[in-house]
């Protein structure tokens, strides 16, 4: 399996080359076009209960699509729903990424996806919900974001503060605490930042340059109210 990002920027697409009988998992609805040799299977990753729990608990799609090159090599074009950059990661079996629930676009056959329960404070205050995706295994992993994607590399014990709604993914070697953005509660709320995550390295944190929630609030004012 080989991956290539087409039209990098706000409206990218991923071209995935599959050898005969290779498969790629993708977010359901992500396929744009494919060679005639590719079959689309709907597969519930982690079995029915696993898929159900992912749907119920993390709000992630119930099904992933599995695209299989069953009649010979071919290519698939995949695209996310929201405008924003795509990042290609390589999993080597020891790396693990925590991904917020909308961040997954596609993964190779060897990529394992599970729903993970966060601790109570992180779930309540972190802004990603109680359940996030824990993605490990081996092979290519494709994540999408809203806006541009930015990578923050943290050395051991190096810290960085991220507004929680801008998080896309972070490696499991990092730790984070939820904090108020300013020292007082009022200042935290009026500064528009509210709660932030203080990450501590080593590891990598991917953030998105736009906040989906704020964008939604902004665009709502232009939507005519129906009678």
């Amino acid at each position, binding site marked *: 399996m080989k991956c290539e990002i087409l039209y990098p920027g706000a409206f990218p697409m991923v071209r995935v080359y599959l050898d005969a009988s290779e498969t790629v998992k993708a977010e359901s609805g992500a396929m744009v076009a494919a060679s005639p040799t590719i079959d689309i299977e709907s597969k519930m990753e982690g079995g029915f209960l696993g898929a159900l729990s992912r749907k119920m608990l993390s709000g992630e799609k119930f099904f992933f699509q599995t695209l299989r090159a069953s009649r010979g090599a071919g290519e698939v074009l995949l695209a996310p729903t929201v405008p924003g950059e795509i990042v290609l990661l390589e999993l080597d079996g020891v*790396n693990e990424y*925590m991904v917020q629930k909308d961040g997954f676009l596609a993964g190779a056959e060897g990529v394992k996806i599970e729903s993970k329960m966060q601790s109570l404070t992180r779930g309540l205050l972190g802004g990603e919900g109680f359940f996030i995706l824990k993605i490990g295994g081996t092979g290519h992993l494709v994540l999408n974001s809203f806006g541009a994607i930015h990578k923050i590399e943290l*050395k051991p014990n190096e810290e960085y503060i991220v507004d929680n709604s801008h998080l896309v993914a972070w490696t*499991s*070697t990092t*730790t984070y605490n939820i904090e108020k953005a300013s020292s007082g509660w009022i200042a935290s709320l009026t500064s528009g930042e509210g709660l932030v995550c203080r990450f501590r390295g*080593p*590891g990598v944190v991917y953030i998105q340059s736009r906040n989906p929630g704020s964008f939604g609030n902004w665009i709502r004012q232009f939507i005519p109210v129906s009678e």
Partner: protein
Amino acid sequence: MNPIPNALCFGDGLPGVGAPCHVTVSADGLTMVPVGTSPLVEEAIAFADMSVEAGGLDHDQLVVSWGTGSSARTLYLKDPALIIAFRRAAPAELTAHLERAAVQVRRARHGHRLLWGSVLGVVFGLGLLLWFGTDLIVEWAVARIPIEWEQKLGESVYQDFLSKETVLKEGPAVSAVQEMTQRLTDKIRDNPYKFQISVVQSPVVNAFALPGGYVVVFTGLMTKAESGEEVAGVLSHELNHVLQRHGMERMVKMLGLAAVVGILLGDQQGLTGLAKQVGMELVTLKFGRAQETEADVTGIRLLSDARIAPDGMIRFFERLSEKDKARVEVFSTHPMSAGRAERLKAELAALPKRTPEPFTFQWKTIQDSLGVSDPKK
């Protein structure tokens, strides 16, 4: 061929996500072999040169660090088998760190479980409370309703009801009922209510009590009863529904949460408005099984205290049940089961034997007066 990576190494010049490497444990330290193309070089680290702690997002990874400055390296081990092997091989001076690390992991996991456990517990507890505790919540709320509200509510329904019925103002039947009520209420300790009893001209074989102490006895009940004690038994039962505030409990249950909130906020007007919705339903209100039992038991005790033969009510019900079950209203609001009769008899047996004092009236005279005053009979 490259070995399978089982650890990540961090440090200057290494990738931000960590350089994958393969770590093996030996008797005197670790050996780290880089996997794939990486600036990392193979290195053997002695136990004496390293420090150890727990780390990672869930505190379940073993973090090994060594070196200073630009050659400082940090190794993250996640594989449980590798961590166990490390802990077995490491010398005592490192073990202290490791044990602390292990305790940290366990504490983090324990805290996690405890938190989720208590959240589930609270949710489960709330469910149980709603399922079984409705009666408790209702009782608690009713205990906060001032008697005056209850009286106001009862009185409006009472006057409404009486205005549509023929009320006996005087006569032997009225004085007989007054005598019974007097003897019963005299024996009630700390009675907050001023009971008002009316005798209503009607063939209905029943009696009912409204919240606030308003009791109605139908002449039909009195013509069917064979003695004053039988009527007094029913009366005592009704009085105890009032004393236990059963009517209010049923009402609050019917009105639901809105009523409880109204009571808490002291919103008398709102509550009266809500109660108006229930209105005349109070007259035909069916009490719950537990409430009937409570009124039975306290009713029979009150009879005994007032020195009125306490078996009147049981006899009355047993006699009527055989022939008139279908058309006697008293059974629709007071269903008599075998179990209920048994319980009443058991309660009766447990009471101290007191010599009953007869009423001053002759029951025959009362019934005659009713027969005369009721042209339908």
